[in-house]
């Protein structure tokens, strides 16, 4: 029999994926526009890109846990259609920010 409800991990990790991708793009703009941010990121691990990657991966895990803990541990109650829209929009938006920034603003 066909079912439609997504598992808690698919929903929480999907929401986290969308949010983390957008934050990834924001970090790109912040570090390229601010020497203080760039130098701070270099100081933490020795290379800005390592800090960037570790920060994004850490945020992905943290947000997935937070979204999973919502509704008293049942996870976010978003519908499958809205989750899909959020995931795709988050990825497209962050890709556009990154490419657009290096194409026009940097």
């Amino acid at each position: 029999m066909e079912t439609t409800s997504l598992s808690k991990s698919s929903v929480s990790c999907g929401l986290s994926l969308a949010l983390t991708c957008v934050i990834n793009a924001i970090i790109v703009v912040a570090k390229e526009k601010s020497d203080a941010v760039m130098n701070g990121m270099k100081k933490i691990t020795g290379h800005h890109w390592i800090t960037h990657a570790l920060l994004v991966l850490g945020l992905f895990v943290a947000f997935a846990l937070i979204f999973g803990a919502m509704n008293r541990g049942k996870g976010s109650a978003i519908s499958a259609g809205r989750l899909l829209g959020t995931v795709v929009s988050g990825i497209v938006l962050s890709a556009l920010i990154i490419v657009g920034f290096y194409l026009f603003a940097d």
Partner: protein
Amino acid sequence: MNAILLMSHVLFGVACIVAAVWLFVEVLHASEANLARIRRISWSAAAAMWLAFIIGGYWYVTSYKADKAIILSGPWPFAHALVMETKEHLVIMLLLLATYLPIVASDNLAANRDARRLMLWVTGITALLALAMDGEGGLIAMGVKLGLLPR
């Protein structure tokens, strides 16, 4: 050593593309019969992407500086200023996408229409983004090659 690292990076990146395309086709025909295979392929795609990311990241941090100087002094400076700069940040998104594949695949794709739809979108975007990263890698290599040619 550098050449082996770079070729391994490309090898695992291409393995991720192949796995993602294979996964897309399997999910289109998802049933109880291929559910276990779908999960194995999704884990393989994620593992290939992690290996490509770690190897490429190590090379980028330890060895890219010399190539960057060659590219910037050559006729294709955009191979660094646009292509490498976007690649090094878009690839983090690709890593998250590939990591998400086995998570969605743990749902029952044979019986769950929404999980199947989500899996198809995520797999399709993973394959396209991985292909774009492969193309960007080619442009960066060409930027180095053109920078080394006598002018």
